[in-house]
């Protein structure tokens, strides 16, 4: 079982959560080019190792948070600013 540290609810089973993409900065839609917007939409780092992600606690507080996870071992740890997304 993988326990995810929700910053509001504490550690819970991974099945309560939904993965919500790599953590990245959304460009301002009014001030970006189509190419940069599509890079934001489609391109992914997809690293093998520690990475920073957004998760959603769908069967709990229903809030988004930031999580650090090793994509090879699936080890997880709370991000420094885990309540910010």
């Amino acid at each position, binding site marked *: 079982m993988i326990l995810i540290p929700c910053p509001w609810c504490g550690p819970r089973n991974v099945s309560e959560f939904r993965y919500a993409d790599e953590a990245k900065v959304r460009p301002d839609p009014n001030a970006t080019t189509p*190419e940069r917007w*599509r*890079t934001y*939409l*489609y391109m992914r780092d*997809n*690293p*093998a190792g520690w990475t920073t992600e957004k998760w959603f606690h769908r069967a709990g507080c229903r809030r988004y948070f930031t999580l650090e996870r090793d*994509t*090879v071992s699936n080890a997880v740890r709370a991000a420094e600013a885990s309540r910010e997304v």
Partner: protein
Amino acid sequence: MSIFTNRDGSRDGHHKPAGYSAFDLFRRGLLGTQWPRAWRSHDLKPSYDVVIVGGGVHGLATAYYLAANHGITDVAVLEKGYIGGGASGRNTAIIRSNYLTPEGTRFYDRSVKLYETLAADLNFNVMFSQRGHLTLAHSDSALRTSRWRAEVNKLQGVDSEVIGPEEIKKLVPYLDTSEHARYPILGALYHPPGGIIRHDAVVWGYARGADAHGAHIHQNTEVLGIEVANGRVRGVRTNRGDVAAPVVVNCTAGWSSLISEMAGVKLPITTFPLQAAVTEPVRPFLEAVIVSGTLHVYVSQTDRGELVFGASVDPFPSYSMRGSLEFTEGLAGHVLELMPSLAKLRVLRQWAGLCDMTPDFAPIMGITPVEGFYVDVGWGTYGFKAGPVSGETMAQLIATGKTPPLIAAFDLARFAEGRLVGEKGAASVGH
């Protein structure tokens, strides 16, 4: 313009891989002696005309067709483990071409055609069994998509039609087609040319064929870096030394983002594990391949009698290939929804493979911004069935320098230019 055009006239005869004799089979059966290895090991040369990264069905098929169709034989296939040990040996070996888009249907139909004659072409029994493929529809919207797919398929000349529960029951008597099921079966997309194959044999057959033509297959050879200078690929660094090459092809699955990153090419790919399981063997009772998108499951019976189950990808990306109890429980429940009589059957083993998912559920094939660096990646959950046609078209692209029309829609530039293919409806769970 290709660097190989000067070689097109220099094909030195046809090296069709040698056949196996019935007498030899009988003799070895009596003596119990080991068969010799079907391909050779070589020292790593300091340079090759073409370096292919990844010794799965895509990489080996590309090497085979480069030699067989274009006379390019100075080719190295670099595999970090053993050939066919990645996605080529972890898929559920289902072959079909009833896709949703005309591009997808045409492409996979060519693959089915190549698979049909593959055993004869390679002189190697790949055990292709075209036993029919059923995609069940449990809702009106699924039935509508089935009709849509059947029409697209028919227009492309692919045998595909929608059938009702009575006909389904005739094809698969053990299926619960009653109205009392939790998700009653309203109909199915029936695809007679679909079926299953021995996936290891396909890998070994292509390896043997490529080897007979002179390509070098290097196992336990891991690519650690890709040399790029002035926008051109120069070669690769491996754990066995450096190799110079004007052409490097990324034919990996699971690690395609990491290999492309070495050449500075970013991909729109996320890697997800996909789990599968197999039961103890029982007598043959299941002819067709059964797929249910609603229940996220597909079932087929191998020639040995085992039932092979697969599902959709795991809910979050990972490079881990460990199975989970949650998956097995969910899968078993879904299989029993379809065939309640299997309740006593025991699961023998489960495993996971890595799927490189793209935003539009279509692959990424062809040129990249780095000259000489080609990609044949993003194969999600549909890579194995595309092995032959991918090898054929990638070899054609490398040899002629021109993108074959069959793969023109799958280029990497489509993401930056906003021309996605949209194969999700037929590819996501539709194995």
